[in-house]
């Protein structure tokens, strides 16, 4: 058995501010190693990076380059792969976020090692890293050993609940040189629906065909808003295919996989493709007029009846709590 395992936790920033998902990455990294080095690519100091010690980072390293303001796939991959090669790391941990899903395979391929993506559990067994990942749309779990060193892993958002394990982490900024990237992020267009993404929200309120027409989604939006900025609006495939909502909102097999603390399914029957995207939610509430709808089989709490009567009432009650 190796004495101590050193893990590299790849964190993320946007506009110079650390993304909260980084807390989950550090928490996950701590699960498989005694020493965690958090690393973030940026142009300079990252606001919030000093907080990573609270979640178990022994050291926080900023890899700085003038070209790292926005996501720079080739530059980030080069800088991280070089850091890993210089290091003796047992594993490299990413978030399975939009950036992590793009970046982790590049880094793994540069290093010539395996990647276990979108893990919901990771563990160290002796010197081997084992990972559990949902496959077949969440209808099965695949447990794998990563046979190469280092193991590269990405963690499903919202699964690795941040655990505070305070360390007095040292901070360090290292200027890195990378080749000019051919792939360049020119701009980020803000989504119309606000900054909270369904894949990362603590609460998701989703609507389906039971809403009857697109304008009725306002009852879903109002309920989401009642949660005071913690909730995002999701949608079933049926309503996305019908053009009522953007694909960014779609939860399910050909949309996003979500694991919020609370998932509220409104007027969604619960087709297997939808269940694939939300069955790992901690608590599921279903509101549907059909008491035999499959969604009630996975829901912790169900209310049967007319959503247009039930949802506004629920919105009112939630507002009271947050008022």
């Amino acid at each position: 058995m190796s004495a101590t395992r050193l893990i590299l936790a790849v964190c993320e920033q946007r506009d110079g501010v650390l993304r909260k998902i980084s807390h989950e990455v550090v928490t996950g990294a701590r699960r498989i190693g005694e020493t965690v080095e958090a690393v973030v690519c940026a142009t300079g100091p990252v606001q919030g990076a000093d907080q990573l010690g609270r979640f178990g980072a022994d050291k926080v390293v900023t890899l700085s380059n003038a070209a790292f303001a926005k996501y720079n796939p080739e530059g980030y991959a080069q800088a991280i792969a070089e850091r890993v090669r210089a290091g003796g790391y047992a594993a490299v941990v990413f978030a399975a976020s939009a950036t992590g899903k793009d970046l982790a395979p590049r880094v793994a391929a540069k290093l010539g090692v395996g990647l276990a993506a979108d893990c919901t559990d990771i563990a160290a067994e002796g010197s081997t890293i084992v990972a559990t990942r949902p496959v077949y749309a969440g209808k099965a779990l695949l447990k794998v050993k990563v046979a190469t060193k280092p193991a590269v892993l990405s963690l499903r958002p919202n699964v690795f609940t941040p655990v505070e394990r305070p360390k007095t982490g040292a901070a360090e900024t290292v200027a890195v040189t990378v080749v000019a990237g051919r792939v360049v992020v020119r701009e980020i267009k803000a989504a119309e629906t606000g900054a909270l993404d369904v894949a990362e929200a603590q609460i998701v309120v989703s609507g389906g065909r039971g809403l009857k027409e697109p304008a009725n989604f306002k009852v879903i939006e109002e309920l989401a808003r009642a949660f005071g900025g913690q909730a995002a609006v999701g949608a079933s495939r049926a309503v996305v295919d019908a053009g009522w909502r953007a694909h960014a909102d779609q939860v399910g097999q050909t949309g996003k996989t979500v694991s919020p603390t609370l998932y509220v399914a409104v007027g969604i029957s619960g087709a297997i493709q939808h269940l694939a995207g939300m069955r790992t939610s901690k608590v599921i509430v279903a509101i549907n007029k059909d008491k035999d709808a499959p969604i009630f089989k996975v829901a912790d709490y169900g209310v049967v009846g007319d959503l247009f009567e039930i949802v506004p009432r629920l919105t009112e009650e939630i507002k009271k709590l947050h008022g």
Partner: protein
Amino acid sequence: MKIAVCIKRVPDSETRVKIASNGKSLDEAGVKFVLNPYDEFAVEEGLRRGEVTVVCLGPAAAQETIRTALAMGADRGVLLQTDAAPADGFVTAQALAAELQPGGWDLILFGKMAIDDYNQQVGPMVAELLGLPCVTAVAHLEIDGQKGVAEREIEGGIEVVEFPLPAVITADKGLNEPRYPALKGIMAAKKKPLEVKPVQLGAGTIEVVALTPPPERKEGKIVGEGPGAVPELVRLLREEAKVL
């Protein structure tokens, strides 16, 4: 434009998962296999932009999957034949990269992920192995000569990405509306060239320990009917589930 589209044969999304007696893989008896839905977007995008070769790594039965892409309109197919599609993304990428290496492709397209193993890695790994620029999970694509602009969804926004050709692109839903193969296409597909090449896969980077059913969710309850049940629902969410 000379385009390669890498596709995969996967169980249909409605499949009921039964685990094989080895405890490590899917029991394929009675399972219907289809062209991976995300790969349909890749094939469609290829068809709109040039001459398409589809490349598939998988068992002999994946010839059927290739025929589906040929029926959509692809020009030729290559099957890199193995006993089964490996769970190992890097090994898959190595085999595909070796096949694509001498190709002189303008564009190599993939689906952003396969709906069976959820690996989401083979496209960018192939790009890395071939030294090509790559944009993943693309929902909008414009190409003008040797320059491309792609849009990909990120949390709370859309990244607008510029890249030069040749490049590797992985397709997300929304990139286009894939066509259904017409009868004429299905007939024509039978005569299109499909080359079968046995391949030896490299040393594995991922070893399967077990495939298990997901934990059952505990039996839920119907709180009640109509808006009158809402106060009790909120009480349960606060006091029992402790999520409010």
